[in-house]
């Protein structure tokens, strides 16, 4: 029996100690009529060699296409040490650090993580992470509603150029809490969210506003203008950012006059593999003054009985296991293991490494755009972009994408699926992992698909 160490002699002596005749006797409180039928739908067990063979075949089946899809999940180089250390048993098989004295490894690491995220986003405090970027944004909206006690409307401005899936996740997760999401349209020429688009809401009671930088199309927003508009009206701002871009871009803590109130985003680009969408982690940072409204676990420095410094879970009175129905969220876990990887990843890259990664992403994306422009394929928008770009494929994007996939190039994400006005446009992302050959392969596959 896999992973069960008992010998026949163990079983016999344990049953004797219990005073039971058989293991079956231990289930005698379950009503007889409820007993499960044999689990015929489950296959026979495999040993490690057998399952290894099966999984290797499954993992290899789909080939290794060259990936240019981003749209919320980004391919980056991850140093070998990152997951080798993160999957050490002491991190991998520990649980939430409730017994602080026996969990200083995890706790100190989270404190270091919180420091890195606060610095990267230009904010004062961070939690220990949430599930992913989309759910972190839903939590941020709830938090902003708690923070803005002045507003009665529970109306939140959401840019149309926000990742459309994030918008749907917010709808799902907080749709039952009476919050109204109002869409702010983007400019169809620049791809930006113009400050003028906010004019329609100048006199409304707005509870919070979301700004995405870069936005879903990779376009850089006028974050100072947008934040300034909200500041004038004392509307809390939630910044949604790509953490790698922050090596180059102004951190949300400096947007507008005083910076935003809450920052969230998808942490995946900081050391989590694409892995079909997860596990990733959502990060959240904020101002000290809002800390008690922040959901999720938070680690703080503490002194022990000897006056020695260490770390504990703090502000637990916000959480479900203490406050139950009055908690800030039902969330229990953070994404501990992925945060462990991200912390090692950020330490390994440092300012210089992360900046080089961001610059390489920027350079490679712009190089692809240049190559495609020579073939008549142009960006759909005129705005400045970071490492993602909406390319106008000129019709039947789905067909061209499939043809390119069949040639081994996953060329991007079909924007027409969520934006009818962008039918025929493809969102492509080029990170530091791509070289000149990869770009040539993209262009060649693209030309072939268009000719077909």
């Amino acid at each position: 029996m896999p992973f069960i160490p008992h010998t026949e002699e163990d079983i016999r002596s344990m049953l004797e100690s219990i005073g039971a005749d058989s293991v079956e006797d231990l289930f005698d409180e379950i009503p007889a009529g409820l007993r499960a039928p044999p689990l015929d739908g489950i296959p026979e067990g495999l040993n490690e060699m057998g399952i290894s063979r099966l999984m290797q075949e499954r993992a290899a089946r789909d080939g290794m296409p060259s990936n240019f899809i981003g749209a919320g999940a980004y391919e980056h180089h991850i140093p070998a040490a990152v997951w080798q250390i993160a999957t050490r048993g002491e991190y991998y098989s520990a649980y939430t650090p409730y017994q602080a004295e026996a969990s200083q490894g995890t706790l100190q690491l989270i404190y270091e993580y919180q420091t890195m995220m606060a610095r990267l986003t230009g904010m004062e405090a961070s939690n220990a992470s949430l599930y992913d970027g989309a759910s972190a944004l839903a939590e941020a909206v709830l938090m902003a509603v708690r923070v803005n006690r002045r507003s009665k409307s529970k109306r939140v401005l959401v840019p149309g150029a926000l990742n459309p899936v994030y918008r749907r996740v917010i709808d799902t997760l907080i749709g039952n809490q009476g919050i109204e999401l109002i869409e702010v349209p983007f400019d169809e020429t620049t791809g930006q969210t113009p400050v003028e688009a906010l004019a329609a809401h100048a006199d409304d009671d707005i509870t919070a506003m979301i700004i995405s930088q870069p936005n879903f199309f990779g376009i850089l927003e006028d974050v100072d203008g947008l934040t300034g508009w909200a500041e004038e009206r004392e509307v809390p701002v939630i910044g949604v950012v790509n953490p790698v871009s922050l090596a180059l871009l102004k951190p949300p803590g400096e947007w507008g006059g005083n910076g935003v109130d809450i920052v969230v985003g998808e942490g995946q680009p900081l050391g989590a593999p694409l892995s079909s969408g997860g596990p990733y982690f959502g990060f959240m940072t904020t101002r000290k003054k809002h800390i008690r409204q922040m959901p999720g676990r938070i680690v703080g420095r503490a002194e022990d009985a000897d006056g020695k410094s260490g770390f504990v879970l703090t502000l637990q009175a916000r959480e479900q296991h203490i406050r139950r129905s009055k908690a800030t969220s039902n969330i229990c876990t953070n994404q501990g293991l992925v945060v462990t990887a991200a912390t090692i990843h950020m330490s390994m890259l440092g300012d210089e490494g992360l900046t080089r990664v961001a610059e390489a992403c920027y350079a490679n994306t712009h190089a692809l755009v240049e190559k495609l422009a020579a073939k008549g394929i142009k960006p759909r928008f005129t705005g400045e972009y970071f490492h993602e770009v909406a390319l106008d494929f000129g019709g039947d994007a789905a067909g061209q994408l499939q043809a390119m996939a069949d040639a081994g190039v996953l060329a991007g994400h079909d924007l027409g699926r969520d934006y009818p006005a962008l039918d025929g446009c493809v969102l492509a992302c080029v990170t530091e992992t791509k070289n000149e050959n990869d770009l040539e392969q993209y262009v060649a596959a693209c030309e072939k698909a268009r000719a077909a």
Partner: protein
Amino acid sequence: MNTTETKLIFEHSHAGRSAVAQAPQAHAATAIPAHLRRKSAPGLPAASELDVVRHYTRLSQKNFSIDTEFYPLGSCTMKYNPRACNSLAMLPGFLNRHPLAPASHSQGFLQTMYELQEMLREVTGMQDVSLAPMAGAQGEFTGVAMIRAYHDARGDTERREIIVPDAAHGTNPATAIMCGYEVREIPTDETGDVNLEALKEAVGPQTAGIMLTNPSTVGVFERRIEEIAKIVHDAGGLLYYDGANLNAILGKVRPGDMGFDVIHMNLHKTFSTPHGGGGPGSGAVGVGERLLPYMPVPHVEQDGQGGYRLADEADRPETIGRLSAFMGNPGVLLRAYVYMRMLGREGMVRVSEFATLNANYLARELKAAGFDLAYPERRATHEFIVTLKKQAKETGLTAGDVAKRLLDHGFHAPTTYFPLLVPECLLVEPTESESKETLDAFVEAMACILAESADDIDTIKSSPHNLPNRRFNEVAAAKALDLVYQEPADDSADAQPRSGTHG
């Protein structure tokens, strides 16, 4: 265990030092307009690759974990996490697959996910399974949101209450609130079962549903579950099963057969995916007939041509929607799949049998060593409760004291002070993967602490003594919050301009 003081990674930093092999080639500066650019470097660590490897390896040595210590944390199912689950989930083909890759390039992955859904369906007796929720608490949310969608679709909008037993996990009431419901608590009777009279009084046309854990959080099987199901269903409510304790009944009794309409499973408990220091979890949800239309998306389905595809909103117009940007935590799901395939149908049943054998044995031995069980007349399930009510009164030995002193003996503490209704409680869950010798050694340590409490309570009260830190002043920490590191004023690496740190 490493008990030496460990500096922060920032304190290992030296301006100008970096892990050179990890940086891509330098590129020309970007044309990003000045007003959108960062003005000073973020202040990430400046360390060599060895600095980083050594620091985080040494930090890891300050953790208790399943791989290093017995970890009988009740309600958390800290069983062995087989290494093959990790290495096979991290095969390059799985790691490099983009979540939006087309179905034509995803068949190996999708088939695996489909088979996982089918195995989970079989073992829970539900009609279908969603892999979308990212953790147990999100699985709970999914279940209650579907209950709400069901009532709303029928125009039955007067149902405002979710019933929750007082012994329930804190996530249950918190979840009900997130779904826009009010919470009505009902008491547990003296044998550990739900108080049926209180339930009958609580149900009515306002009842949307009940959230139950079975075996319950007090470590006993809810014997009158069929009666409970009938009472709630007759009142028009639905039954939600919190799968936290599924390890106790795997292959023995199925939530679907008990009458539950929707359940969540904690794959990081029952199906042995790693707890990872607090996540990632995975809260797959099993769904009964009535709630099928409301399942979250995406959902893996057969494509009718021998392949697999992801169904979305267009396929399921009544879906409650999306819970994450993509489809939950596939890396965790792959680990659960490997574990389930290794167990197979026989191994699955052995899990609950040996988890139960270990718990009943440990309960009996601790009783023999002088500890009181909270429900001595009941069978233990996969876990049980020790109460130190008597000792707390007589010698001052509390559940918290035992927990801390156990750390000195090299054992992680059981869950303390949960469930809230049992005074001075330790919730002990040994799991099936521990040997008799380990359980005996644990009993010995517990007996030792009990003996020590009679003549040297101070040593216990001031424990732990053998760990990196003694007990912390958590109250002071919550008052004077220190949540991020501040560089000493004379060494502010983060204030240096970025242009000076790379080229």
